[in-house]
């Protein structure tokens, strides 16, 4: 069981800053002005677009950058109308689209800029603008995904295995697969998935257990109509037993061959029945035991070790 403290979150941000490219978080919808734009018009441009600065473009070429600060200085010095060209900064530091964010962070840090025009490496063409706000927003968006997973880990009913004192601990779930509309296929796997996540198992283990159960559940629905799923969760493994009183499997070795199938056509319309069921279960499981008697039924025992 992993704990996700501040330190780990900080490490995740550091990794992201190296992993993410400028192009992934910059604003692409760039507002620009021309050198001839009047300073008196700049105010409404900045205000209406809610931006704090803009590149000054002569055709495709960046000739300067003008910010709210330049505007305030201009006002302070009397606000006599003139073209932007006379008030803009002409020393424009740009950043290339495919550079890692860490590069941009260090430029902001050293130079105190508010924004960086982003250019394409090959052509030098302006493709976006990057602000500190864009960086923060981009990082938060990427952290959101891992955060959901983290939340699930903290919402376990939990530390259950760590906190209980006993020589042996197991949590048991039991589900019935009922004869009913085929659309219900997968509802057991779905319920099991939610339960295992709440127990705080690693997402990859939950995924394997859900996939194996889903395939087994579809097999029961297709061939036997009804059955039971019993899941035993122990600290070192998840055991899933799927039992039915269906027709049984005449040749288990063949049934395990990828692509071998005896499924009727209507099953194919559901996206199953292509002979991948048992092989799929096998690839999710550390161990798969099949006990089957023709005319009496089939019991699958799927063992998934906790190691990822």
């Amino acid at each position, binding site marked *: 069981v992993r704990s996700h403290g501040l330190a780990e979150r900080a490490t995740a941000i550091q990794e992201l800053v190296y992993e993410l490219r400028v192009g992934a978080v910059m604003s692409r919808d760039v507002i620009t002005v021309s050198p001839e734009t009047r300073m008196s018009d700049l105010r409404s441009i900045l205000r209406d677009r809610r931006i704090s600065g803009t590149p000054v473009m002569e055709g495709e070429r960046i000739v300067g950058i003008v910010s709210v600060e330049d505007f305030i200085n201009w006002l302070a010095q009397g606000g006599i109308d003139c073209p932007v060209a006379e008030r803009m900064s002409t020393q424009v530091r740009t950043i290339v689209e495919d550079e890692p964010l860490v590069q941009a962070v260090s430029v902001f840090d050293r130079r105190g800029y508010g924004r960086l025009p982003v250019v394409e490496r090959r052509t030098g063409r302006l493709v976006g603008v990057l602000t500190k706000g864009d960086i923060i927003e981009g990082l938060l968006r990427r952290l959101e995904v891992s955060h959901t997973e983290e939340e699930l880990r903290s919402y376990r009913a939990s530390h259950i295995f760590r906190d209980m004192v006993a020589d042996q601990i197991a949590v048991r779930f039991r589900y019935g697969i009922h004869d009913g509309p085929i659309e219900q296929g*997968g509802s057991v796997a779905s319920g099991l998935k939610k339960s295992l996540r709440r127990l705080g198992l690693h997402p990859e283990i939950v995924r394997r257990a*859900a996939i194996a159960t*889903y*395939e087994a559940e579809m097999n029961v629905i297709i061939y036997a109509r009804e059955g039971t799923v019993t899941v035993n969760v122990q600290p070192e493994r998840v055991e899933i037993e799927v039992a039915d009183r269906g027709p049984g499997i005449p040749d288990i070795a063949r049934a395990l061959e990828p692509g071998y199938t005896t499924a009727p056509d209507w099953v194919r319309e*559901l*996206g199953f029945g292509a002979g991948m069921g048992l092989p799929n279960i096998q690839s999710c499981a550390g161990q798969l035991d099949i006990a089957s008697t023709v005319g009496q039924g089939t019991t699958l025992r799927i063992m998934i070790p906790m190691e990822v």
Partner: protein
Amino acid sequence: MATGVGLKLAQVAQILEAGSLTGQVSMDRMIRVVCASDLMSDVLCFGRRADLLVTSLTNAQAVRTAEVSDIPAICFLHDKVPAADVVALARETGIALLRTPRSMFNACAALAAAGIEGCGA
């Protein structure tokens, strides 16, 4: 972790000229790896987790398969519209649904050209 930066789901929708069947939720989600198949067992057996399932199968099993394999979004091909209960199941399980007029081949070609990776060999 995938190497490509990927695209937002909204950008993927734009590339595929796809409309959303589940509103604007999750349209900001990053899509890096796509799984494309009409065989749900094939989807289930791809080892790598995908961010989007591209399929022409529009029944509840497509949504269940996505749910079970941690795939947060599905794009249906040939402008196929799933039944209302399938959309409801997707909403309930938090899976975004799109539909595109494109064929499997053309949808995949467009996604590959945009730098999206596939799962499986």
